[in-house]
């Protein structure tokens, strides 16, 4: 009897504190914040300086995807011919079937061009059966939203900044950009 009463006291105490400071969130009405590292659906990033995608369509993400949810093709970059861009090739067509994607983040890990990110998008239910097959413009749209929201810096640039900062802290002069 005593132990049951102890349990009831615990419930009562929690009710009182719970009224003052509820832990539940009214989810659909109230947006749940996600952590900075949250892995939502993958999206493609946009190079604002040259105004073209980072993606060159090299397909390394596709080869490493465990579920084969992506497809892509590349083309010659017209901006490279004009001398505006250093990318010789550029993505022509890109599609991700988000229904197949398992949000593992392997594509991001293996991308050599900082071109793909795990965005914070996760509420993308649709009514149509193939409504979750997103094409290049839609992916770039999600990517831009993510880049704006998180002040995205390309991971390779970020790693370089960190390495330089570590070197500066160690008392060595920061090296020029050739490694």
């Amino acid at each position: 009897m005593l132990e049951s009463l102890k349990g009831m006291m615990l419930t009562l105490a929690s009710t009182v504190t719970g009224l003052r400071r509820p832990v539940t969130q009214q989810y659909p009405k109230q947006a749940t914040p996600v952590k900075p590292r949250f892995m939502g659906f993958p999206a493609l990033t946009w190079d604002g300086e040259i105004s073209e995608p980072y993606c060159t369509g090299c397909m390394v993400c596709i080869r490493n995807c465990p579920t084969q949810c992506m497809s892509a093709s590349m083309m010659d970059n017209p901006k490279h011919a004009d001398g505006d861009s250093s990318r010789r090739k550029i993505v022509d067509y890109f599609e991700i079937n988000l229904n197949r994607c398992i949000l593992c983040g392997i594509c991001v890990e293996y991308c050599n061009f900082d071109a793909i990110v795990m965005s914070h998008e996760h509420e993308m239910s649709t009514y149509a059966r193939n409504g979750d097959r997103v094409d290049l413009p839609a992916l770039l749209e999600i990517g831009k939203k993510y880049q704006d929201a998180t002040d995205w810096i390309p991971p390779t640039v970020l790693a370089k900044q960190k390495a330089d900062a570590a070197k500066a802290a160690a008392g060595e002069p920061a090296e020029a950009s050739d490694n």
Partner: protein
Amino acid sequence: MSTQPDTLPDIQAERVDAQPVEMLLNMGPQHPSTHGVFRMVLWVDGEKIVDVEPHIGYLHRGSEKLCEGEQYHQIVTLFDRMDYIGNFNNELAYCMAVEKLMGLEVPDRAEYLRVILCELNRVASHLLYVGTMGLDAGAMTPVMFSFRGRERVQALFEAVSGARMMHNYFRIGGLKEDVPDNFVELMNELMPILREDVEQSDRILTFNEIFLSRLKDVSPITADEAIAFGLTGPMLRACGYEYDVRKAQPYSVYDRFDFEVPVGLDGDCWDRHWVRVQEMYQSLRIVEQAMEQLPDGPVASPLGRRLIRPPAGEAYVRAENPRGEIGVYLVSDGTDKPYRLKVRPPSFCNLSALRRLLADTWLADSVVVLGSLDIVLGEVDR
């Protein structure tokens, strides 16, 4: 001595012309108390269970076969989805198997972080168990308390790995990336609250008189029988047999921590519950020690993103999952995909004792007994 499982009557042969007093009762796969999609066919005589036939395979996805078609670094995602309550523990078992085959040394910091995350995952898994055990026994409140703690652990996992459940965070030879810069603050914030959550979910349920009378002396099993059935984990320790892979054959850096292995007395449902509750406290102890000793250094694999090709050969590793001993048997033929990968899933082996455990119990206790097995169907069916 132990009772062999095949001494029970053969269902197919003898139940065809069963006595009219016996009733066939189907339970599952959509029954909420089967913790997933487990189906069992019960033969009941009034309120007594005469026999039971378990049906597994409803969630069969062919994980082991899928592993043969994936490259080594992609298989981690499949192991996430096997025991989907103890994801980190599963990833660890797989990564250790490949590391053993390749003879890889894992950096110290990565080992410590792995242990921290695995033990937190054990707490989260057992908290879920405590909540659902309360539900199985008819108490609606404990699940509210235990889920609160579980939610906090999952929030930490999200901050560390980017996903609440399917982390894909452990890599062969290390971790995907280092923990966020504020990891120590997050842990300092989490640990006291989590301990309080564990204590609350313990206090509200474990010694409750109704819960005790519901679980005590229900389907006891002796240590001899448990070993004969191949039970591991809390199921075996509840019988009074002290066996924990973390102590018996320490892997990772478990030999550097001071912790106890809680052991039950009678091997009944309540003992299984008690062992799991005590294990949570021990896991918290390990996490606290690991946080104190956490070294600096690299966490990533020395392999980088190179394609992983272990030498031809085979390796077997075992590890202590929240549900028992997981074993991963890996055969490599030297290519980038495993030749064969066999998993010894703890809950599948624990489930094999179901017929013995349910024999001669009341129908109303069947849900409690199944709950005390703490099965995860993703792992049973694979």
